[in-house]
């Protein structure tokens, strides 16, 4: 509903401000990426870069590998996520609240740390590999597709689990009872009523897995070795030490963003007409099952969740062990941390400072945007809603490249400084803060604001003095989420960082390439600490917003 006078101005002003920000720091850089892909050195239009990329067996393989990894991860994450969600929603599995809290942790843990854990355990010189070798057993390789898909599956399955769980819980008990009352068996009721109702949530989550897997830089960076992967090749082409090719990087970027945008649009179009699950007045009861089934479900749930956290736990444990060169000696000590921080605390301080700035900025920008999206329906807000979800679809590497090209000369020059990193993080994480803000606003009765306005406070003052305090809990949750994910950010950081503004993630990636696994493990542990701990602290706050954060 449109509103007259200052109320409309307030909404319009926010929309335009947000569009201006995203236009300048998302669309404008992307435009440069697109332009660089269709221009030759003289600036004339050409599709040579596309021809070059698409006629190269290597780059076509790169596109194929990335899509295959995305599709497989999507399928596997669904195969894990849906049964897990069902067990957590409907079976008496012991420790369900804790399980649920733990299951949402992998989403914020840096996935390339998970990949690194795999290398540490099963890599060429991995601890398990070495142990097996000493027993005369040859272990298979975890490098390449298998390892990458494993890591994606284990770190991204919460994207399916959380919305599906919310879906199962939002189905009113009477639905299933009605089906059973009409003569359906439990399985028939699940197949014909329950599953169709939650299917949109499953698919929405699965598509997010696909998108995340497609644009992920860190995991292939650790596990691909020489195999081609899209995000990796884009970075190599753009910033490669030998013979950078910006046009080819641009062409691959356009292909990557094209794939993810199509996926995101599919997801939106699919969801737009399928919102079956409404708030349940009465949640469905737990299903009584035999001891054996309960045991099986318990083993499955705890198994999956612990398995997904195991690599991270292993890294933390290993980080406290002493290394002699590359060889683990199983003597506890803090040597790795000393070595890591010996150089300077700078990367750690950078990470904390950049993430904090990004979290505050994303919240300040995202809260009003989320508010407008939740309250107002107009053409401007429809555009804003699409543009504000776009960062999900734009790979961090591509955004980084765009920002570099757009702000390298002329005015303003941002490359090489801290601001460009903060800008990249804010753009990348804006969907998170927007969604958490609008989830909260949806829970605030609009009549409250109307009451305030009719009592004499202007819409802007009403927003600041009434709505913001009411939103505070949700905003804090969203802010922590931004902070945590910005701390673990690698795909845009790797393009944008400078030696003065090195972050923990960059340092970790660098120490991976070196021969100091202990320091890498220490860096990884610090990242795990700074991402998992805050999330678990505000877990209660976030849970109230349900699956809407995804």
């Amino acid at each position, binding site marked *: 509903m449109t509103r007259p006078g200052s109320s409309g101005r307030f909404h319009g002003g926010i929309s335009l401000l947000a569009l201006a920000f995203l236009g300048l720091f998302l669309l404008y850089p992307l435009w440069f990426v697109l332009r660089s892909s269709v221009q030759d050195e003289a600036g004339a239009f050409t599709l040579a870069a596309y021809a070059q990329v698409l006629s190269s067996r290597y780059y076509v393989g790169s596109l194929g590998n990335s899509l295959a990894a995305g599709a497989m991860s999507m399928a596997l994450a669904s195969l894990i996520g849906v049964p897990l969600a069902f067990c957590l929603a409907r079976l008496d599995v012991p420790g369900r609240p804790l399980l649920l809290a733990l299951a949402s942790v992998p989403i914020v843990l840096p996935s390339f740390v998970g990949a690194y854990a795999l290398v540490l355990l099963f890599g060429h010189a991995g601890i398990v590999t070495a142990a097996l070798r000493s027993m005369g057993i040859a272990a298979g390789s975890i490098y390449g597709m298998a390892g990458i898909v494993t890591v994606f599956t284990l770190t991204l399955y919460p994207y399916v689990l959380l919305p599906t769980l919310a879906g199962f819980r939002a189905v009113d008990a009477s639905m299933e009872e009605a089906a059973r009352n009409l003569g359906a068996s439990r399985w028939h009721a699940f197949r014909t009523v329950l599953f169709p109702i939650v299917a949109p949530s499953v698919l929405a989550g699965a598509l997010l897995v696909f998108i995340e897997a497609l644009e992920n830089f860190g995991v292939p960076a650790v596990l691909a070795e020489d195999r081609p992967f899209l995000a990796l090749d884009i970075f190599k082409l753009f910033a490669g030490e030998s013979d950078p090719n910006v046009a080819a990087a641009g062409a691959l970027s356009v292909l990557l963003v094209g794939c993810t945008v199509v996926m995101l649009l599919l997801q939106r179009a699919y969801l737009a007409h399928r919102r079956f699950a409404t708030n349940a007045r009465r949640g469905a009861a737990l299903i009584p099952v035999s001891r054996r089934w309960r045991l099986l479900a318990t083993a499955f749930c705890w198994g999956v969740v612990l398995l997904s956290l195991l690599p991270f736990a292993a890294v933390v444990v290993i980080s406290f062990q002493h290394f002699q060169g590359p060889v683990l000696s199983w003597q506890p000590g803090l040597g790795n941390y000393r070595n890591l921080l010996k150089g300077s605390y700078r990367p750690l301080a950078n990470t904390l400072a950049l993430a904090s700035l990004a979290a505050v900025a994303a919240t300040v920008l995202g809260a009003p945007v989320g508010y407008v999206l939740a309250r107002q329906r107009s053409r401007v807000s429809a555009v804003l809603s699409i543009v504000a979800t776009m960062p999900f679809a734009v790979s961090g590497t591509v955004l980084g490249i765009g920002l570099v090209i757009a702000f390298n000369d002329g005015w303003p020059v941002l490359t090489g400084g801290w601001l460009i990193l903060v800008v990249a993080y804010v753009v990348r994480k804006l969907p998170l803060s927007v969604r958490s803000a609008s989830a909260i606003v949806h829970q605030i009765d609009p009549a409250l604001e109307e*009451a305030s306005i009719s009592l004499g*406070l202007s819409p802007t003052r009403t927003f600041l003095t009434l709505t913001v305090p009411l939103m505070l809990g949700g905003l804090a949750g969203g802010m922590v989420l931004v902070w945590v994910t910005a701390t673990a950010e690698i795909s845009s950081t790797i393009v944008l960082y400078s030696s003065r503004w090195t972050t923990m993630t960059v340092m970790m990636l660098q120490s991976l390439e070196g021969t100091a696994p202990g320091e890498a493990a220490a860096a990884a542990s610090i990242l795990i600490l700074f991402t998992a701990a805050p999330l678990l602290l505000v877990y209660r706050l976030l849970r109230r917003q349900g699956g809407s954060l995804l």
Partner: protein
Amino acid sequence: MTAIRLDAVVRTFGSVRAVDAISATIAEGELFTLLGPSGCGKTTLLRMIAGFSDVESGSIWFGDQRIDQVPAHRRNVGMVFQSYAVFPNLTVEQNVAYGLRARRVSRRDIRDRVAEALALVQLPAHNTRWPHELSGGQLQRVAIARCLVIKPAVLLFDEPLSNLDAQLRMHMRVEIRRLQKSLGLTAIYVTHDQEEALAISDRIAVLRDGRIEQVGTPETIYRAPQTAFVAEFMGSTNIILGVAAGFDGSATTVAAGGAMFQVRGRAGAPGAKVLLSIRPETMRLAGCPDAGGPTLAVRLQLREFLGPLLRLHAALPDGTPIRVVTLGGQGAQPAADGTLNLIYDPGQIIAYPAP
């Protein structure tokens, strides 16, 4: 004290004219009710007066001041919402003081006026309780005090009682009416409950599809509905399709439902199709001592005992259903074949031209 004038006010949503050129004048100190089924435009019209919905064309006046272009927060309107909209993050006192703070009233005046407003709605002064500790009725009182305290030009009520249980609803509507009268405030009241509208209003406007169907006092609206829609909406009347026959100078004979009815006045030209509205309570059971007039034979189908009242569901000779309400004490024993004789007053039947 402010009169309100609506002048050809229009609002459309897509292709639907939610408010279709409505004009009305509400006198100072009057309680004016917008009544109608959901989707008739009554809430939209109220929100336009409050400033939450755009006025596409036409104008709204408070006294001689045109206000439809004034932003909502400068209209000095007190609005009571269906959901009460009591701020959950403020105490009762802070809620009531909210509008005074916005107007930068001095601290001492705020305290006095808040206490005064709380007293008006019979809540204790210095009320530091939180909204989640209050019952629905108490929340409603807070919402009303919060409006009264700013001395609004007009009071707007958006189905304020629909979230209360039946008994409290009756109690609160008496209290709202008493407050509004004693303070002399001009009020517009939106409801879909015809009984509530009849009980509380000085005048009622019955709305249908964005237009005013009829405006009048509760008595006029109930006794002399101008259209079949109003008749049907105001209490559950029997609407029966019939064909007019001869006019004998005082009454018209109408064939309807397989029976012949006598209707006072000229109901229509002979052969014209008419809709008859017969209120259930205007019919009597034959055999009652005070009954006199034309009779009607119906077949009893179902009887509902409602305590003070007895509602009978019957059928006219051709099967058309008809309802009759009588005082509960009278026994209504049909003949062995199920026939029941009713007596009616030709002056109580209203005929409308059939569409």
